């Protein structure tokens, strides 16, 4: 069974915008979601800049009952539920109010680590000899699959309900997993996405690795500089993105709005062999992932007119461009448009792939390529490979035809997905 799969719903809870409207205008204008974080300063972090969605208390009331809100201390669940429920509504789908689970609807919603603040609460109580005071939600807020479990209950899904985890590729991996499930005829509709918690306990480890920029604490919106000569490391972020994937048949039957088609993708690993390691990518695997994604999607390298990279604003950005260039066999003026949203969103870790995929797909709707932030000084290594005009510094009018989106993660893991504009036949 090889069925076509389309995207019919989007939802987002990002540092630069909560909800599709705010998020879209932030991307069009290049509004930054990166801010100085007083709590990181108080704790003596080297990098005190981060991207955190600004979620108002009364907004949370729209998604959680008063009972669910009691003791809720898992930001990832808040972001994931907002994005997931929004995407569901955006697709024109209702919560299941019948007595029967929706057997042909499922959820693959990933995360890296969930409910860190809730876990900290529990650790303190347990260490005080007070385990009996944990309450009933300690487990569901800290289990990795808490996010898919919350969404599964809210929406009444009866197909696969699970959580994937593959570091910073998580969100992109989830899209490919959901695509495959629908393509194989095992489900009609899959909600896929990913979320990542906010706060010092998530971001601290990266600060300790000294891979975050330390010179921008007074200038937070300039701190994340993908593809720039002055890139000094990534800015950590948090949030969630969500997409509703659906069989073309189901979408047409419902008369749903279709954002784009998912043509296919590839997930692989470099085995931490050769130049690959726990934290560095094996370029052979990266190039293979991109090439196989094109093969699986049935497109030629020349069909791709826009790329959304992983491009975190570390010294590895040049290598990533080289890998794209090698995999596509295209360079200089012949290279597609390429952008990274991390300049304004930061690196939302497990949520990165889904937040960036939502942004990527919005480019079909807006018929633009969103601008790159903070790279007026393109890195000379990158300029040697591709023309500066491939890196839009202003949002550019261009109706994308085929967009490749990739994410790479710790553990030497890669994911690349190919989206195509829906033709108006």
């Amino acid at each position, binding site marked *: 069974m090889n069925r076509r799969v389309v995207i019919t719903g989007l939802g987002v809870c990002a540092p630069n915008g909560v909800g599709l409207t705010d998020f879209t205008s932030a991307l069009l204008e290049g509004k930054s979601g990166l801010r100085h974080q007083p709590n990181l300063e108080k704790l003596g972090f080297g990098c005190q800049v981060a991207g955190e969605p600004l979620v108002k208390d009364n907004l949370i009331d729209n998604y959680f009952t*008063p*009972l669910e809100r*009691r*003791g809720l201390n898992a930001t990832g669940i808040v972001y994931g539920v907002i994005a997931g429920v929004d995407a569901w509504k955006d697709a024109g789908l209702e919560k299941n109010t019948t007595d029967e689970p929706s057997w042909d609807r499922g959820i693959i919603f990933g995360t890296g680590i969930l409910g860190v603040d809730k876990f900290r609460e529990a650790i303190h109580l347990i260490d005080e000899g007070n385990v009996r*005071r944990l*309450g*009933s*939600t300690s487990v569901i807020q800290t289990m990795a699959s808490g996010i898919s479990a919350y969404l599964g209950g809210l929406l009444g899904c009866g197909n696969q309900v699970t959580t994937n985890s593959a570091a910073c590729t998580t969100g992109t991996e989830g899209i490919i997993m959901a695509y495959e499930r629908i393509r194989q005829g095992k489900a009609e509709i899959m909600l896929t996405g990913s979320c990542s918690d906010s706060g010092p306990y998530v971001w601290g480890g990266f600060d300790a690795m000294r891979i975050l920029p330390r010179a921008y604490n007074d200038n937070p919106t300039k701190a994340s500089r993908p593809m720039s000569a002055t890139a000094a490391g990534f800015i950590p972020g948090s949030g969630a993105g969500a997409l509703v994937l659906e069989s073309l048949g189901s979408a047409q039957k419902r008369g749903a709005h279709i954002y784009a088609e998912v043509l296919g993708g590839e997930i692989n690993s470099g085995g931490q062999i050769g130049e690959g390691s726990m934290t560095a990518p094996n370029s052979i695997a990266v190039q293979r992932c991109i090439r196989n994604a094109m093969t699986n999607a049935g497109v030629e390298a020349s069909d791709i007119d826009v790329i959304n990279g992983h491009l975190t604003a570390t010294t590895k950005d040049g290598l990533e461009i080289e890998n794209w260039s090698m995999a596509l066999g295209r360079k200089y003026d012949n290279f597609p448009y390429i952008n990274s949203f991390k300049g304004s969103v930061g690196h939302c870790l497990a949520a990165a792939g889904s937040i960036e995929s939502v942004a990527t797909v919005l480019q079909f709707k807006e018929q633009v390529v969103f601008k790159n932030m903070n790279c007026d000084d393109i890195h000379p290594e990158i300029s040697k490979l591709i023309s500066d005009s491939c890196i839009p510094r202003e949002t550019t009018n261009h109706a994308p035809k085929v967009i490749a989106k990739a994410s790479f993660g710790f553990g030497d893991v890669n994911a690349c997905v190919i989206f195509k504009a829906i033709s108006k036949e």
Partner: protein
Amino acid sequence: MLNEEKYQKLKEIIKIYLPEDVAVTDIDQDSHFMNNLNINSANLVDIVLDVEDAFDIRLENDDMDQMQTVNDAMAIIDAKLAEK
């Protein structure tokens, strides 16, 4: 503390755990938490913690097992307050 005052305090605690199909007015002294008020067993754990906080008492495992109805809860609270 008057009995009525205690009862109201307890009702306030229970209220938030009621599922959508059960109203506050459905709570009476004989109500069984799980069978009549449809409160799930996980939330019963949270009600115990709320009762401890509200009345500044500590319930032991046996007390929790015995707390099946609103009346049971009232009796346990009385006993714990008397011990203080």
